[in-house]
């Protein structure tokens, strides 16, 4: 166990619509790693996030980050959420309606804290012009940026994001990912993101945990978890459409519309007559050998 790690071991009973479910989760994260937490709803993802934040108390468990101990039920130790150096982005953003955008951020400052971070974050999230607006007077995407910026005011060691991508359109989703990556580079926080989108997991995460029925059934780098998977029903499928292509000396470079973004993909020779403009395809990433099925 290095001291730059987040270590989590939790045992709890989940109360779901289907009855009680034992929850058992343990994993470690390197400092500054981004972990995606995914799985069906009701599996306990939000509960886990709130337990890490200290908003919910697990029946048994130990949570430590670096040298700081946050929870140790065996020794009856629990630090309150206020004393855990975290940032939490809630699914509903939880912006304070009575405060302006700037006030929402300033509220997060500790007493006598340096205000420059607030201006820095407003500028970085391109919210300076909206600083005096109330949350109800800005768009959903802007609200989300406020929530992210507010969670970063205290320069948290650990950033927790509960389905930040679920409520906004793909354009904004992409933009938010950019912001998360940018801030991650800047502040080097460890992050846990609850998300359902496989493409996002690949784009953002160093580690992915799949949670099912209260248990972390799979954990590891996304490529390993998704691509080395021998169970056919867990293959990763990427759907796309060829927009145009150019030939180079040794391959075909095609611009493809994948997940609402134009992406350049490399295709081997011999697919030339198949990879025509307007063709729809499904990229099947399974058993370490990507395979393309041409649909139309």
């Amino acid at each position, binding site marked *: 166990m290095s001291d730059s790690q987040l270590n989590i071991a939790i045992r709890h009973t989940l109360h779901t619509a289907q009855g009680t479910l034992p929850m058992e989760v343990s994993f470690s994260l390197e400092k500054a790693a981004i972990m995606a937490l995914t799985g069906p709803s009701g599996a306990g993802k939000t509960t886990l996030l709130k337990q890490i934040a200290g908003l919910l108390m697990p029946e048994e468990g130990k949570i430590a980050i670096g040298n700081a101990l946050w929870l140790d039920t065996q020794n009856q130790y629990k630090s309150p*959420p206020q*004393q855990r150096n975290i940032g939490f982005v809630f699914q509903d953003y*939880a912006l304070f309606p009575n405060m302006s955008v700037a006030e929402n951020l300033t509220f997060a400052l500790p007493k006598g804290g340096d205000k420059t971070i607030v201006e820095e974050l407003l500028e970085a999230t391109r919210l300076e012009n909206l600083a005096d607006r109330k949350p109800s*007077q800005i768009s959903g995407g802007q609200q989300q940026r406020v929530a992210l910026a507010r969670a970063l005011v205290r320069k948290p060691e650990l950033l927790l994001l509960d389905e930040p991508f679920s409520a906004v359109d793909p354009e904004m989703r992409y933009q938010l990912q950019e912001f998360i990556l940018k801030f991650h580079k800047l502040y080097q926080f460890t992050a846990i993101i609850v998300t359902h989108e496989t493409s996002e997991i690949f784009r953002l995460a160093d580690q992915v945990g799949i949670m099912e029925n209260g248990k972390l059934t799979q954990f590891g780098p996304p490529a390993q978890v998704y691509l080395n998977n021998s169970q056919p029903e867990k293959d990763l499928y990427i759907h796309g459409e060829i927009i145009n292509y150019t030939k180079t000396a040794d391959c075909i470079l095609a611009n493809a519309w994948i997940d609402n973004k134009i992406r350049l993909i490399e295709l081997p020779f011999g697919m030339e007559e198949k990879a025509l403009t307007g063709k729809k395809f499904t990229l099947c990433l399974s058993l370490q050998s990507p395979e393309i099925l041409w649909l139309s």
Partner: protein
Amino acid sequence: MDYQPIWLTFRLATITSAILLVLALPVAYWLAFGKFKGRGVVEAVIGLPLVLPPSVIGFYLLLAFSPSYWFGAWIEKVLGLRLVFSFPGLVIASILYSLPFMVYPIRAGLQSLPASLREASYTLGKTEMQTFFKVLLPNCKPAILTAFVLTFAHTVGEFGVVLMIGGNIPGVTKVASVAIYNEVEALNYGVANQYALILFAITFVILLLVYSINNRLLRVRQSA
């Protein structure tokens, strides 16, 4: 016509509502978010004035406040205060009588706020107290306003309790509702009508103001 009963009524209602607001905030918060056993008992006790005839409450308060019983005797000994047939006694009785009208709307307002607001404030390092005053209360202003006005109006309309423990000492305990009753008993319908009209007009204007303010607050909140 003697305006003293009207003046006394509004003085009583203002003092009662102001004290109750301070008392009800922690109680409402506790009922809304506290984790404790026996919540049902506390709720039932607070809600009693909603269902009990005012004369029942008045009767027991009369006994409690009377110097011939231990509570009244103790208050008189410690504070030098006789609560029965006095203005302070009326204030205390009104506080108990109007307690649910202040506590319940505020509790409902607190509970209607998304839990994530509280949680977000905690994760931003704020204490429960800071969260309560800076996040929760400012965001349930309509509920607080409603609670205050309901309490005020309920105290203005008080009759049975006042009659039981206050009597009708002019300038001390003779409030407008009691004055109206007295005038009607004495067949002075004209004076009774004047009192009644003034009460009617003032309370109507207050309610009108409150609902327009509340609607504006809600509209601001909902416009997105």
